[in-house]
């Protein structure tokens, strides 16, 4: 610690204030710049909620703690700030677990505050006691169990610092009831973490090596992940790519980091990526990964991934380098620093044969679907959404809806595509949309959903309505768990085991109305645009129920365990298949009126 800072901290420690633990928590949140928290109270949190009642922090009451975690996550992804969620001890805390794991897998800065039973009851199996620090050990960047009120400022300061710095991630603070009641002398400490030094600076030698490799490469591809978004390095990425005319492909987490309408954009790669992105990877002689981690959904069969390429890997997390693939040139550090240094080091490069080849692939193998006059195609809905709300923040659920949203919306802004990539959490998109809208009230926020996943957190309609958070939901309603059904069709001889939702699905329009939201439905392609226009014009939470073709598949597709070059354009379903699946769905489904369900 430099001496000046040390003196400063001594000075600060003299300005102490006496307060309760609960008040100290609120003081810490204020000092960390938190203006909104998402939560749901409980017995052990009564003192904390009493302090919230008396403070000016905005608290958004959710209807299920999982919603709170996803809202904090969506807020963080949309704003770049740390999202905060609060849940009580025991079941409240365990309900956060899926949301925390979602944030962990996608490196989202979040602080989760959980209530805990009194310190003297810990370990006694007290009412609503759960060992949440133990439970969340493998899904948090770090976590704390507070034992004393005097530690509150230090722990909160560290937690926010850890959550937002280096490779971001969720940090959990477990707060026993008596710790919130006890008094302390509040002083704002310095962060002192001898075991935590995120490596942000890049090694000059490695940048020189990377630049040389980029200059020598004939068929380079820049492969971009969520790290570019977290480092706010998308402008530097753009500058570099344009300077050396290198094509750019993104992972699901990197969607939006490079404008998809640019000629150098290859769109998304991997299992449901574009054919041209996957072909480019397989033909490439140099891949530069930036803030990406060679996930199995990206690489396909790892032994056949990019067989001809040298690999440069830039990441702020040294443990990612060499984890999944061998790396020729590792560059540890912040993506913004690394790309800035690299831009200076490379010389401009003209378009070449490689760019022509890619242009050819793009024109030969575009993303496509067969439009239909009678049945609504989900891709058509996404295209219309993109046309009518090009600047909207898009959140997604998980499954087919997510892949269509990634493929057919033209993404240009890194913080405007919000999706659970790593964990693949169904039920994420809607609460994440609420969080995003709270953080960016100026933006239109649309959750592109499936009928299966929307129901997993549909109770948050109440949160959106009561807090006047006018998010929009577009349900691609195919009456089934579409992605799993797609796999069953392709790999399990059309045995649709437990994927037809049938009778259990509600009338989504009535569901929205029951909560006081607006519900709209389209059953024919011609109704799609009017419904979207009506939803965009609405100043209330609005749900659009699009009855889509049930057999529509996400295409193209790299089958699990295959190489990226083995990407398939899925065959379009036959008329008889549509009829038979439609029959199964309508037989088990009473909620969608007959005429609307008929295709």
């Amino acid at each position, binding site marked *: 610690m430099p001496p000046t800072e040390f003196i400063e901290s001594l000075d600060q420690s003299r300005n102490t204030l006496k307060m309760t633990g609960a008040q100290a928590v609120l003081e810490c949140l204020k000092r960390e710049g938190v203006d909104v928290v998402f939560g749901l109270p409980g017995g052990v949190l009564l003192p904390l909620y009493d302090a919230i009642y008396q403070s000016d922090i905005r608290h958004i009451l959710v209807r299920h703690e999982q919603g709170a975690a996803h809202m904090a996550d969506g807020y963080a992804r949309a704003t770049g700030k740390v999202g905060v969620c609060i849940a009580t001890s025991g079941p409240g805390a365990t309900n956060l677990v899926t949301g925390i794991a979602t944030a962990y897998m996608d490196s989202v800065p979040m602080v989760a505050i959980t209530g805990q039973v009194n310190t003297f009851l810990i370990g006694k199996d007290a009412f609503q006691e759960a060992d949440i620090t133990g439970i969340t*050990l493998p899904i948090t*960047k770090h976590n704390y169990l507070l034992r004393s009120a005097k530690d509150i400022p230090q722990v909160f300061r560290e937690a926010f610092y850890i959550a937002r710095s280096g490779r971001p991630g969720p940090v959990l603070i477990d707060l026993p009831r008596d710790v919130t009641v006890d008094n302390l002398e509040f002083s704002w400490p310095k962060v002192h973490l001898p*075991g*935590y030094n995120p490596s942000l600076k890049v090694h000059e030698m490695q940048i020189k090596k990377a630049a040389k490799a980029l200059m020598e490469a004939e068929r380079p591809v820049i492969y971009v992940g969520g790290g570019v978004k977290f480092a706010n390095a998308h402008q530097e990425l753009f500058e570099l790519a344009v300077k050396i005319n290198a094509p750019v492909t993104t992972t699901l987490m990197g969607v939006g980091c490079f404008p998809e309408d640019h000629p150098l954009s290859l769109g998304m790669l991997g299992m449901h990526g574009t054919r041209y992105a996957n072909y480019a990877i397989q033909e490439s002689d140099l891949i530069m990964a930036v803030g990406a981690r060679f996930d199995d959904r990206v690489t396909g069969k790892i032994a056949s991934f990019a067989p001809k390429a040298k690999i440069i890997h830039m990441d702020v997390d040294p*443990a990612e380098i060499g984890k999944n693939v061998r790396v020729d040139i590792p560059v540890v550090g912040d993506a913004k620093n690394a790309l800035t240094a690299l831009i200076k080091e490379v010389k401009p490069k003209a378009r070449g044969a490689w760019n022509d080849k890619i242009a050819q692939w793009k024109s030969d193998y575009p993303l496509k679907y067969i439009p239909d006059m009678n049945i609504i195609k989900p891709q058509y809905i996404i295209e219309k959404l993109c046309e009518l709300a090009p600047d909207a923040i898009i959140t997604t659920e998980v499954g087919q809806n997510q892949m269509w949203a990634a493929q057919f919306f033209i993404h240009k802004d890194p913080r405007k595509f919000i999706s659970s990539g790593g964990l693949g959490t169904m039920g994420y998109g809607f609460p994440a949309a609420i969080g995003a809208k709270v953080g960016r009230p100026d933006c239109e926020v649309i959750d592109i959903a499936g009928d299966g996943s929307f129901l997993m957190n549909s109770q948050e309609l109440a949160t959106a309505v009561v807090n006047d958070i006018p998010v929009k939901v577009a349900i691609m309603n195919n009456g089934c768990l579409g992605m799993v059904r797609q796999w069953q069709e392709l790999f399990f001889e059309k045995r649709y085991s437990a994927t037809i939702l049938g009778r259990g699905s509600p009338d989504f329009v009535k569901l929205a109305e029951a909560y006081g939201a607006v519900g709209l439905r389209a059953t024919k392609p011609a109704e799609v645009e009017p419904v979207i226009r009506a939803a965009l014009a609405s100043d209330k939470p609005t749900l659009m129920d699009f009855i889509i073709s049930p057999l529509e598949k996400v295409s193209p597709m790299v089958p699990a365990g295959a190489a990226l070059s083995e990407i398939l354009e899925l065959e379009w379903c036959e008329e008889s298949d549509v009829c038979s699946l439609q029959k199964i769905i309508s037989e088990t489904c009473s909620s969608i009126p007959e005429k609307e369900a008929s295709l």
Partner: protein
Amino acid sequence: MKHTIAVIVENRSGVLTRIAGLFSRRSFNIESLSVGATDNPDYSRMTLSVQGDEVVLEQVIKQLSKLINVIRVSELSPDESIERELAIIKVSADKENRAEIMQLVSVFRASIIDVSSRSMIIEVTGDEQKIDALVLLLRQFGIKELARTGKVSMVRGARVIKA
């Protein structure tokens, strides 16, 4: 291949769980683990023995380094460091074979720390191979109980691994 890693950690509750949890979650294989205080009471030192190739070793070191409570991680190469382990072994012993066992104990520069009419406890310190060898030889007499500490290790010469 077996590797020895020294880890300096903050001396506070839950740190051992974090390290054990990391190993199980990432499917790393710990063969032995020992923990104890260092000269500075704020820090503890762990010695881990890990099975795996170079890629696994690199991941183990990097993943350990990511833990907030871990201050330092170093691999101790077998050529440049010394390692010691302590074992106490209870063997069946009566007046017939007591002398033979005592002879063995003296060859290994081990010591006898408890004697009864039907058993003996032997204490031995050394590297893993030495202890393995003694255990093997004692087996003929009947080992009733065996407790090993897991090894501790230190680099030879002036180089220091500390917080």
